[in-house]
């Protein structure tokens, strides 16, 4: 039996912040395109691939669990850019 929804609205905004912080997801400027994969889904896939999770491009319990684990804070890209 699979729960109907494991992800709350708070989880979604938590995940968005996580991807902005650690996977260099940028805010969409201007009108959003109607076709193609959403940047959120693309970044979720990137994160899932990095951690060896099941790549769905969707926010699921397994991905959220990984996001909530204690971790190192500054994303690599930002470190490199900073210096």
């Amino acid at each position, binding site marked *: 039996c699979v729960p109907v929804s494991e992800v709350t609205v708070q989880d979604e905004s938590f995940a968005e912040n996580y991807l902005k912080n650690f996977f260099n997801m940028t805010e969409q400027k201007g009108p959003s395109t109607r076709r193609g994969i959403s940047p959120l889904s693309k970044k979720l896939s990137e994160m899932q691939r990095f951690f*060896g999770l*099941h790549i769905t491009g969707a926010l699921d319990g397994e991905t959220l669990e990984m996001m909530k684990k204690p*971790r*190192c*804070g500054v994303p690599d890209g930002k470190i*490199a850019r*900073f*210096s």
Partner: protein
Amino acid sequence: TFGNSLKWEKNSLTYRIENYTPDMSVAEVDDSINRALQVWAKVTPLRFTRIYSGTADIMVSFGRQSHGDYYPFDGPSGTLAHAFAPGSGIGGDAHFDEDEMFTFSSNRGYVLFLVAAHEFGHSLGLSHSDDPGALMYPVYSYRDPSTFVLPRDDVNGIQSLYGSNPSKDPSVPEPPPPTTPDACDSTMVLDAVTTLRGEMLFFKDSFFWRSYPQSNTPQQTLITNFWPNAPVNIDAAYENPQSDTIFFFKGSRVWAFTGYRPVQGYPKTMNSFGLPRAVRKIDAALHDVASGKTLFFVGNYYFSYDESRQTMDRGFPKRVDQTFSGLTNKVTAAFQNRGFTYIYSGPYMFEYDLRTKWLYRVLRNSYFLRCT
């Protein structure tokens, strides 16, 4: 690495500890920071000198929330620390989130030595690794700091920037850097396999994979992430679903956990199960749900333990091939799934029906532990 050859152009670096956390004594912080730097010095030509005033290459500080670098910390848990890649000014500096509870070696709180060793990896030019066994994996995992050996992935990374340690004495043997087991290695022999609360767990060295019905990608993680007090490199494991207990065997000792919580009174010696004293270790353990018996495999023989009576059954040990036809080599792991019994022998897995004692198939590890 960060790319663009982002590294220090000198091998002699300075560090300074600007302030201290109240979670630990000053001596403990000093020692943790020094040992964390030596982790990298051991395998490279890099040398670190502590200074007490002025600007060092690596400035170490504890701070909370906004602490002056435009990357504020986030309160307890979440982000533990961050560090900047080699460079002038803030480059190389390591900041630790004061809202965390840092410890010297306990698994309650975050071991400062482990967090610092990871951050100094960034300070020296390493980015994050996707190898879950690497120190540079971005997620914290507890390991015993007294036995820590820098994993192979990190050694390869740092040596690609700075080369190896020229002053290492080849006559002094050191433990080899640990590597992370690969599910795609068809020759891999698993240490143990068991179920736990509907999941399948596959153990190898310090790691295990979790495989559960909702996901077809097994997740690899360190054993100590889930059971900080459990042994690694285990010999055998089994689950007793009636008591919701998982048992780990290593040498002559056995550990027990209710799910992930240690059971009081453990670790015990294996003799508490009634195994003869001559049995120093077991090769595999299997719990048969239908009969409530647990089988312990030792060499070419196996014992049967009655879980309800908590005694060994009479008439044992028996030869393994008496019950499990076709099994001529040593049993290395065993478990049950959907009523079938799976006995591992090296990289092969034999599928039996324990009631009829029929051997159905000979499979490979990858049947359950998928290579993804």
